[in-house]
């Protein structure tokens, strides 16, 4: 093991040990058990620490765009809200995270925005900065405590073979990378091997402005942000702005219906610039629609969400990728509280892709994926939660890949 890897590995282990010791500290009330409020009630700070462990994910089913498995990571999360006045707040969330047993650590602002209610008597709010994505329901579950399992839904995490900074020259180039979303390489744009993009990036917030109106039972939000759902990045095509919206309706307590839509530029500015003058650069963008439902009663919470995404990329050479590339992800999730402090949960998840035609025939442009994840959680104390989950994945590419992964997560929050 190289020295740097050893240092990283030791750092990971130290963080893990620190986290594993937290239940004792929490029980002894040495660390806070509720959000800390100070500055006369204006500043509220909360934290969340989690460590997830699993076997090696050799087929990269759970890798995120941070190049490590979501089932093998340590994360420290500090969130704060500062109430400047009755109608203005500043919110921030800073995360320190890295892979267990090596890999790079990163410190990044996850959220950083102002929240304003311009008219006190009207239910209209404005948020600006690094804001939460408007699209989707799983995006609202920012804290790990909101996820009854450990893995993310495929639509929010699974890396497709599509990249925004590199394009396949032809349909054959794209089909060659089927099922290799964790490391793809294409002939146009960035020549370095790198990961693809998920349907929606569930790990990053978006830069822009959002307006929210209404309250229960119906509310709506519209946002103008940089990039697209897959790549909420500032380096997507110049002049393009993502427009996204969401409507949520709660007809009765416990039932929420949601619908979302989004359209924005997808291909990186550098790639678009390199195609300038060829007439190809205009074909660029991601359009997505989503629907979600949540129903809870008694000891049950049931959720389902579907995302349909369509990407347009420049068709450069034959056989052409002339039609938009489509993908559809859907999951069903349920949680049941068996007894105080103990619950069971399961999620069934699938991700499908549209067909394209290459010299080898017609087939989905990326390998379809299925996932079943089931497990449970036990609260060691009110704010220390241990989860045990088993996940089984299938990927139907040229070679079918299957992987069963047992994972555990220890989570502390205040």
């Amino acid at each position, binding site marked *: 093991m190289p020295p740097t890897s050893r240092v990283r590995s030791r750092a990971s282990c130290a963080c893990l040990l620190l986290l594993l010791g937290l239940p004792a500290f929490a029980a*002894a009330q040495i660390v806070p058990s509720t*959000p800390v409020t100070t500055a006369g009630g204006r500043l509220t700070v909360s934290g969340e620490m989690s460590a997830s462990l699993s076997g090696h994910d050799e087929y990269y089913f759970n890798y995120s765009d941070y190049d490590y498995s979501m089932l093998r990571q340590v994360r420290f999360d500090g969130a704060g809200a500062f109430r400047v006045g009755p109608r203005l707040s500043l919110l921030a969330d800073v995360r320190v995270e890295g892979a267990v047993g090596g890999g790079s650590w990163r410190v990044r602002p996850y959220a950083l925005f102002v929240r304003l209610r311009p008219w006190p008597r009207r239910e209209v709010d404005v*948020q600006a900065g690094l804001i939460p994505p408007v699209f989707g329901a799983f995006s609202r579950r920012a804290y790990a405590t909101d996820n009854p399992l450990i893995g993310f839904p495929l639509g929010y995490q699974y890396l497709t073979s599509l990249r925004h900074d590199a394009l396949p020259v032809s349909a054959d180039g794209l089909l060659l990378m089927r099922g290799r979303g964790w490391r793809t390489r294409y002939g146009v744009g960035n020549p370095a091997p790198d990961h693809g993009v998920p349907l929606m990036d569930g790990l990053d917030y978006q830069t822009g402005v959002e307006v929210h109106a209404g309250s229960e039972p119906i509310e709506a*939000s519209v946002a103008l942000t940089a990039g697209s759902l897959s790549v909420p990045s500032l380096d997507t095509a110049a002049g393009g702005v993502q427009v996204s919206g969401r409507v949520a309706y709660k007809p009765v307590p416990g039932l929420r219906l949601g619908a979302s839509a989004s359209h924005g530029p997808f291909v990186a500015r550098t790639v678009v610039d390199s195609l300038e003058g060829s007439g190809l650069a205009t074909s660029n963008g991601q359009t997505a629609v989503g629907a979600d439902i949540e129903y809870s009663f008694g000891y049950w*919470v049931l959720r389902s969400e579907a995302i349909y995404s369509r990407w347009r990329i420049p068709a450069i050479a034959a056989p052409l990728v002339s039609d938009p590339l489509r993908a559809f992800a859907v999951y069903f999730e349920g949680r049941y509280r068996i007894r*105080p402090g103990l619950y069971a949960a399961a999620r069934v998840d699938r991700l499908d892709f549209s067909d394209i035609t290459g010299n080898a025939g017609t087939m989905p442009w990326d390998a379809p994926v299925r996932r079943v994840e089931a497990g449970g959680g036990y609260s060691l104390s009110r704010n220390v939660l241990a989860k045990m989950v088993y996940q089984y994945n299938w990927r139907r590419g040229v070679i079918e890949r299957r992987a069963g992964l047992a994972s555990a997560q220890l989570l502390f929050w205040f």
Partner: protein
Amino acid sequence: MLRRLLTLASTLAAAAGVLLPARASFVPSAASPGTLRGRVDVRNAMMAPEPRPGISDLGVDLAYEGMDRRRTVVYFESAPQPAFEEGGEMHATMKQQNETFVPHLLAIRVGTIVDFPNGDPFFHNVFSLSKVKRFDLGRYARGRSKSVRFDEPGIVRVFCDIHAHMNAFILVFSHRFFAVTDDEGRYRIERVPPGSYTVVAWYEGIKQDSRTVTMAGDGRTVEADFTLR
């Protein structure tokens, strides 16, 4: 840290006192029972916890107003034997209102049934992981209520699974010699037989004070004030 541990140790000792109240040595006689009253002054009272920052919310949260938390429980660490034998089914209520448990602090006797009605236009999920009483009432809507009977003495912390900032205390006693202070910190415990008692003022599990009080048996009112720093 040492200070925190000492505070914790004293809190646990207090909890043990509530769990296993000793029988006080008192002389049954024809003497008149008295009244114990006084005031508890809480310095640096805790603020009600705010919700976790809603970083994924798309708009302003429901206006949340944390309640003032200056109420304490004053109780006898030891009590006359007959006090443990007084029975009868009792009822108490802890409502969920504006994302707050009302009251935040409830003191009851063993055997009391506590109702938890939901007064908010959305779901709550009342639960407790306390060793004294573990329960989970599930999610239920406005206008509905569920109940829990408390059969063991001790301290029960109550939370909502949906709204993490909601929390409350229920102190369960084996005897009737306890009182929750009012808005101004005053308390009153009546019909106290003659004898010498250790009286404790308890606040949120983090502050407490105790003193010995002697009831002469002449029917008079005895004053005992506390200051919790």
